[in-house]
Structures are given as C-alpha cells and as structure tokens.
C-alpha cells in the first residue's frame, strides 16, 4: 500500500513536470533527480553517512537523557512543577539561533550538528515520558500501594511499562526533528553532511542535486523510523490491542 502511494506520487510529479514544461531549476522531475543521484553518488553517500552518524548520535543522547529527565519529571510532582516551565522556555528558543553559538563554543563540524540534533529532539521525549508516568491510573497505584510496593517498584512495574507507547510515539516525532536539527546545523556551521552539500549545490543552481539530497535525507529518516517501529513492536505491541 505505501509503495503504491509513493509510486503514484512520483509518477504524477514526473508527468506534471513534463506536461507543464517546468524548468529544472524550479522543480526538477524525478528522472533528473535520479540522474543526479547516480552522477554524484559518491559525495552524496559520503555526506549522507556523515549526517546519519551525527543525527544518530544526537538522537541517541536525546533518547537516553529524554528518558531520564522524563522519569524524573513524571515520578515527582515537585520536580515536575519546578523543571517543566524552564524546559518549555528553553525549547521555545529557535534552534537556528543556537547553532552559531555552538559553532563559537565547539568549532565548525561535528559537535554543533550533534548538539543541535540533541537539543531539538529531546523535548518531545521528555514530555511524553513524563506524561505517561504522571497519568498512571490511580487504581493501579492504589493496588500497588496496598500490596506494599515502594515508589521504585510502582515505577518499574507499572509506570514505565505503561509509558512505553507514549515514549515510542515521541520517538517518531523526535526522529524527524533530529534530522531537521542536524541539517540546519550543517547549513549554518559545518563543512560536511547533506545539508552542507545541499547548500553548495543550491549556490551553483544544481537544483536536481539539491532534491537528490532531500531524497537521501528522507531515505535515512525512513530507515531509522523502521528501526524504531521494530523496537516498538517488541516492547509495546500490547498497546495496539490487536489479535494475532
């Protein structure tokens, strides 16, 4: 089914470009994008790998730290009240504005890209994990309290398993944000990566190459999404309540 949608989308695009004679530097047809992909496959592959690596590392940190902070927020009402507003304030800062600061601190290259990916994708994870924990059904909590379970046991046996669907939902959002973050960082302060390649290509009006870069990013994002979906099926399949 998704294949059908994708193929028809590409077919309509190609048809529209040919039919209306759209110039290549405005909207290239899929055929010329494919040609650019083939012609420039080495630099595209190398830069895509670089972007994938920085995004994955930044995303990995976001997952780890997002989980920890989300746990802290969800487990304690006091921590929630104190820290949450500060987090919201931090998250409201446009990340594009932060990249030059990161570049100043850590120099051009890997670190700003990883940091931006991290900073932009950590918030949804924190929010979802905290919400999942804070909305634990009172009856379940009462049940465990009446059995003598301590806070840690309630968290481990009830809170965390229950929050897993929320966590995986946030991963899907955070993943796309992480790519956004690292590509933005690359366009502003890097000399590697797909963002950098796209910037260079657009400066030379090689628009098919720009779109080839977009296609590369989309492919990487889908691959990482599939990894998350696979993990979700292992851990939180129960949430879908489907039979068989």
């Amino acid at each position, binding site marked *: 089914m998704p294949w059908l949608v994708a193929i028809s989308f590409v077919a309509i695009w190609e048809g529209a470009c040919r039919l209306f004679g759209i110039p290549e530097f405005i909207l290239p047809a899929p055929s010329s994008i494919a040609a650019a992909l083939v012609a420039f496959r080495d630099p595209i592959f190398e830069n895509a790998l670089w972007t994938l690596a920085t995004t994955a590392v930044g995303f990995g940190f976001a997952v780890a730290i997002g989980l920890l902070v989300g746990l802290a927020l969800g487990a304690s009402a006091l921590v929630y009240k104190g820290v949450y507003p500060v987090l919201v304030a931090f998250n409201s800062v446009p990340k594009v504005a932060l990249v030059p600061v990161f570049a100043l601190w850590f120099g051009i290259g890997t670190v700003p890209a990883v940091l931006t990916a991290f900073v932009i994708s950590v918030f949804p994870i924190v929010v979802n994990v905290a919400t999942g924990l804070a909305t634990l059904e009172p009856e379940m909590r*009462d*049940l*465990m309290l*009446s*059995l003598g379970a301590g806070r840690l046991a309630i968290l481990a*046996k009830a809170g965390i398993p*229950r929050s897993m669907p929320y966590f995986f939902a946030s991963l899907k959002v955070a993943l796309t944000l992480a790519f956004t973050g690292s590509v933005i960082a690359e366009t502003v302060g890097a000399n590697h990566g797909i963002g950098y390649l796209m910037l260079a290509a657009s400066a030379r009006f090689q628009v098919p190459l720009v779109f080839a870069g977009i296609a590369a990013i989309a492919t990487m994002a889908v691959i990482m999404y599939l990894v998350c979906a696979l993990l979700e099926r292992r851990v939180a399949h129960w949430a879908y309540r489907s039979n068989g």
Partner: protein
Amino acid sequence: MVVASAMDRARAASVAPKDHSHVELKDVRLDYGDGERRTKAVDRLSLALGRGEFAAVVGPSGCGKSTLMKLVTGLLRPTEGSVCVDGAPARAPIKSVGLAFQNATLMPWRTTLANVMLPLEIVEPHKTKLRRERDAYENRVRGLLRSVGLDEFAGRYPWELSGGMQQRANLCRALVHEPQLLMLDEPFAALDAFTREDLWSVMQGLWLGRRFSAILVTHELREAVFLADYVHAMSSRPGRIVMSRRIELPRPRTLAMTFEPIFVDLIHELRDAISRGQAA
C-alpha cells in the same frame, strides 16, 4: 491452697481474650475538601469484622462505601475515630490484604498469568522465594486460575478476555498471596446479570475453600445476602451503619435460594433500613 504469684497473675492478664475482631472501625469520621467545601464522607461510622467472617456493606451511591475501603486499607486516615486491623491502627500497606476493585485494572502489557502473579513479586515472603521457586508458584497460580475456569487463558492478554473473565482474573490476583483479609469494592458492578450471578458462586467457592475475612462493598442487595454472614446497611452521606443483619442461611448457598421467601424478606428488611437511612 493455691497462692497466685505476681508472675502468674501477670501471665493470666496477658493471655486474657483479646478483642477478636479482625477489623474494627470506631466512631470514624472522614472529612474531605478544603475550607467552605469541606464535607463529611462518613460520620459516626462503627463496624466490626470477625476473623473468617464475610461482611457486606450496602448503601446508596455516594454514601461512602469506597471511603470505607480506603479507610480499612490505610490509604486514607480518619479525621476522627479509629480504624484498627488486627488491633493496630490501619496504615498502608496493611499486612496480608487483597483488593479487588470494580475496574479489573489488569496490566495490559502482562499476560493473565503474569498479572495474577504480580502480588507475589511485591509481598514478602513470596518476593524473595519467587526466584528460586518460580515453577512451584506458577503451578499454584495455574491451579487458582483453573478453579475459576481461566486456565486456558493463562497466556492471553487482558484485552482478549471478556469483562467477566477479567474480573475472575482480578479475584485470583487479589487472593494469590493468600491474604487474611479481602476487600471487594463493587467488583461485579460492571458486569451483566448472568455473569454476575456466575461470579457470586465463584466467590463463594473461593471463600469456602480459604476462609479469609472479607468486606464486600456493593449496592446489589441480592449479592450481599447471597455471599455474606453479616450485611451492614449504610445511610446516605455522611455514611454510617444504620443496620447490621446476621444472615443465617446455610452454605453453600444457591441461586435458587435467592428467590425463596426468607431470602426476599431479608432483602426487604435491608431495603427499608436503607430508605430510612436515606430519609434521615
């Protein structure tokens, strides 16, 4: 001539019969809400439950039945009066209690078997013994599930079970760690009439086999009279006991008994007491 020494007298005093109540509430009042909206959930509530006794508490909606549950399990502290379990003030967690709520609240990420085993992972001494004796415990749990007709569904997830089956699993979970006191808060309220009557028999079977003390909170009078030794009728809010009726029907009781005149009379009696309590 026998001279009782001081030690003998002291020993005699210490083995003097204690209050035999398992659970005792004395003149309990519970306020909730703040400032102007402060209301009494229960007031002048007194109740005693003997060991091995099955007591039912019936009353209209909002009379404080669920508050009673929370008071007995120590999840709420009384504003006035005392709540004692085994002679000591009730404070969560009460040693050896099993709870079953109206909502089965089974963990959807666990199979039925794993759900029923949950208390064994928390309550001592089972918690420490579980790792070594896991197989033995599992067999015991399967036996429990078999006694309520759920042994085939041990590996299924809660959403694959009907409401009645979920409640049966809930009852098993409440009893798996062999508590001495079982608290039931309208456990069958969300079920249809047929399933309900089925589960009365299941509950009776479990009780006859294990003889724990039980407090069943319900609004269904037939259920109360079917299952209980004593039925306590509560007035509307602020709740207090307006009548405690001993039910001397022979056990095991059957559903056919519920239509006999003596049964129906009991129900009328209780219903009258509750209406008077509502008007009061």
